[in-house]
């Protein structure tokens, strides 16, 4: 206890997530910006096929080489970022928002609302999440919209459980009691006093979930259930390049590296957020 006192009085600088948060965010922002200007940056058209230039290995002219149709892989990887990143962000954010709202309600109101939410959560958790996603997308038809619906249905449960647990603990704290005793309405207490203190953990979790959403999307596309041509997407690119992996590795490996890069950036962001939001 004494130690907590000693250390607790050290001033912890707030508002700084350290360099990790900045580096991660800059990486993602650069990638996104590059995707919009891909053609200008590389001087190639992502869709232009040139059968005379098939399978060129990486050179000064084609940094990432060309694919089986002679298209510039770097340009395509960059353009795909414009599809993958927004979908991955939404794929993490949509279930997070749904889960946080339902979880907060379930924790604060308890009663039948709480019970209903948690039974629904049990039901959904009975299915493996990959299977649930694939079945839903199969039923709804391939595409980005179906992916988002599928991701939201499966992934909100974790957030709901997480936030409900935190809210159950917070609602017993004195400052929440004090707010109630002072006659503040339930909506205000929930929105101003409970939820903001429950959010940090969910936000950190959602940040690391971006990678998971990205891998789900890539996996769907790989299976042919995700983004359809002429749309360009990393998982789809990997699938297309797979038959040539032995000799023309760059066709699959370059989009794979892009996914890893995003993974690293997201990890940095999540780690930075965690340090910043931790009290």
């Amino acid at each position, binding site marked *: 206890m004494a130690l907590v006192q000693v250390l607790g009085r050290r001033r912890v600088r707030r508002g700084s997530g350290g360099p990790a948060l900045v580096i991660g965010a800059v990486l993602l922002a650069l990638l996104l910006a590059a995707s919009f200007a891909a053609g200008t940056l590389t001087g190639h058209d992502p869709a232009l096929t040139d059968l005379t230039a098939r399978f060129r290995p990486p050179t000064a002219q084609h940094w990432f080489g060309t694919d089986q149709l002679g298209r510039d892989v770097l340009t395509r990887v960059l353009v795909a970022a414009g599809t993958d990143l927004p979908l991955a962000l939404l794929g993490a954010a949509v279930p997070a928002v749904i889960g946080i709202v339902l979880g907060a309600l379930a924790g604060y109101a308890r009663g039948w609302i709480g019970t209903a939410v948690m039974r629904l959560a049990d039901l959904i958790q009975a299915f493996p999440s990959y299977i649930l996603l694939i079945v839903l997308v199969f039923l709804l038809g391939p595409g980005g919209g179906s992916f988002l619906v599928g991701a939201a249905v499966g992934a909100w449960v974790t957030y709901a459980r997480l936030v409900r647990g935190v809210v159950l603990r917070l609602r017993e*704290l004195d*400052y929440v*009691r*004090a707010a109630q005793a*002072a*006659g503040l*309405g339930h909506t205000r207490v929930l929105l101003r006093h409970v939820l*903001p203190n429950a959010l940090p953990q969910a936000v950190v979790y959602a940040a690391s979930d971006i990678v998971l959403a990205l891998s789900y999307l890539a996996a769907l596309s790989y299976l042919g259930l995700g983004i359809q041509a002429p749309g360009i997407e990393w998982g789809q690119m990997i699938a297309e390049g797979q038959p040539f992996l032995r000799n023309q590795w760059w066709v699959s490996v370059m989009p794979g590296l892009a996914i890893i890069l995003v993974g690293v950036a997201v990890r940095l962001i999540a780690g930075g957020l965690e340090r910043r939001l931790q*009290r």
Partner: protein
Amino acid sequence: MSAAPLLQVDDVVVDYSHGRGSPAVDHVSLDIPRGRTLGLVGQSGCGKSSLARVVAGLAAPTSGAVRLGGAVLPTPRGRADATRIQMVFQDPSSALNPMHTVRRTLTELLLVHRRAPDRRAATDRAVELLELVGLGAAVLDARPRGLSGGQRQRVGIARALAVEPEVLIADEAVSALDVSVQAAVLNTLRDLGARLDLTMLFISHDLAVTRYVSDELAVMHRGRIVERGRPDDVLRHPRHEYTRSLVAATPRMDGPALSEAEEARPL
């Protein structure tokens, strides 16, 4: 002392056991005249905190009622009644919203309950409140973890006073504080009681501390009030067996160390 009681606790029972065990609060009746402080002493688990929550309107009694100025206060309290009884909590580390600045903690209440017309006036009033509890405008933009335990507890008192309550409950409000800080907060509470003509219910496990701030003392044991009287009478001539053991166990600085005679007492 003959003034009509402002706060009346009327035969309150709090029973979590649904009739299977002894109730946490067992038919307790108390009354406090306006402007007076009633000290409630008891060990942890004696039911004093359950009683405090009922009086504050945070929990409904199993039976019985809380009256203010003669009229029964319903639970949950309506918006108008909610501000009439306020509470200062025990644990300075959880009593304030960690994300809110002191300014926000105080102005939120002032604005919601229309104790101030706008943000500016609310801030002015917040500074007044902070000065009242021995702090100043300097802490306005601090968050709880930038404050010491004693400062947090003072902000907690200012928050309770912001809505101009008629009754203030202090539930172990100084127990978590260091001795040297506790004294200053006790002085503030006593001083406020006199200046604002506050009616107070001061709850503590510490007999000496409670005696110091109270006009009247009630001793609670196993859910019941076992003794009640003027503080010095209770301490000097405890009538109930439990009170006697409490008085005997309260250390005195000038008192004896453990002696041979005490060794002989059964453990």
